[in-house]
């Protein structure tokens, strides 16, 4: 039993695709990390994402992610993007996607769950919350520049 647990942990750290994955890193440039609990995993093309993961990019970093409902999200340089909630039912297309852009930039294209129910995808920022009614949009949260 102990061996099995260790093996699973090792797989998790390697970022291999698991059944619980809600998305997959398809693009990774520069420094990109996934914070999962207290662990920080370097993200590369093929790293699986899970609910509650936080995507963190460096000054030269950017990452592109596909989710199981075909939503696309990219995170730009110097960004912190937390996936607070994600669930998607492949049969009914019902789901819930709550992202939290704490810092930096994000571009996204909504997927099947928004088509099914327009209230299902939200992006939080420190100053406002956005509901996504359809397709493509970008968001910037600027920590340094005070307008």
């Amino acid at each position: 039993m102990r061996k099995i647990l260790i093996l699973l942990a090792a797989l998790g750290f390697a970022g291999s695709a698991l059944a619980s994955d809600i998305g997959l890193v398809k693009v990774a440039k520069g420094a990109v990390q996934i914070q999962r609990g207290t662990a920080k995993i370097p993200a590369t093309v093929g790293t699986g994402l899970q609910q509650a993961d936080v995507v963190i990019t460096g000054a030269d970093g950017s990452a592109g992610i596909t989710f199981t409902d075909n939503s696309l999200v990219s995170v730009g340089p110097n960004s912190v993007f937390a996936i607070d909630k994600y669930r998607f039912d492949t049969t009914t297309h019902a789901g819930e996607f709550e992202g939290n852009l704490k810092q930096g930039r994000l571009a996204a294209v909504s997927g099947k769950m928004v088509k099914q129910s327009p209230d299902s995808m939200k992006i939080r920022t420190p100053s406002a919350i956005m509901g996504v009614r359809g397709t493509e949009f970008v968001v910037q949260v600027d920590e340094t520049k005070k307008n």
Partner: protein
Amino acid sequence: MVRYLWLFAAALVAAGCACAPVTPALFVVVPDAADGHIGKIVVKPNGGGEERVINTAYGAERVRGDGRVETTRLSEGEVKAIFGPTMDALPGRAMSYTLYFLEGKDELTDTSKVELDKVFADLKHRPLPDIVVIGHTDTVGGLEYNDRLSRARADRLREMLVGLGIPADRIQAAGRGKRELLVPTEDNISEPRNRRVEINVR
């Protein structure tokens, strides 16, 4: 040193005040890169205030550092300047293709053989594609025969994609027999548009 202390004090005061500066944020609707469709977003400031709907190309909602919220519109160039590297990292969109087969065979029609090259051109640009290949038949023949034929068509297409260089572990194949007709027909009807394989890629 004195200056730092002052900044620290100012931050403390600001944090305890209802009129505290907020973190600036910018939300922009971008025309869909695939079909030019203009979407819609709804933005609501955390500190209360009305919910605003943005539904124009490059239409934007900006939350300023002093807490003011304004509805505005950026140019395509301004969006590119701010979000260029971010948008460049967006993965390719999910796509679906349909290729057609000769009657009773797992061989593509001549038109679809040409089409396959275009499908492959798209697939090879995708790092780590997730591909699902689903075979279908028309209603000529029994259920079991068509289940086998649809699976053979899906497997054949999978082999062709692997032959072109797509890693085998990225492609799932399935057959749906005559259960999911593109063009509804009676039983035992030869219909070229039903003899097909769907290729779904993400």
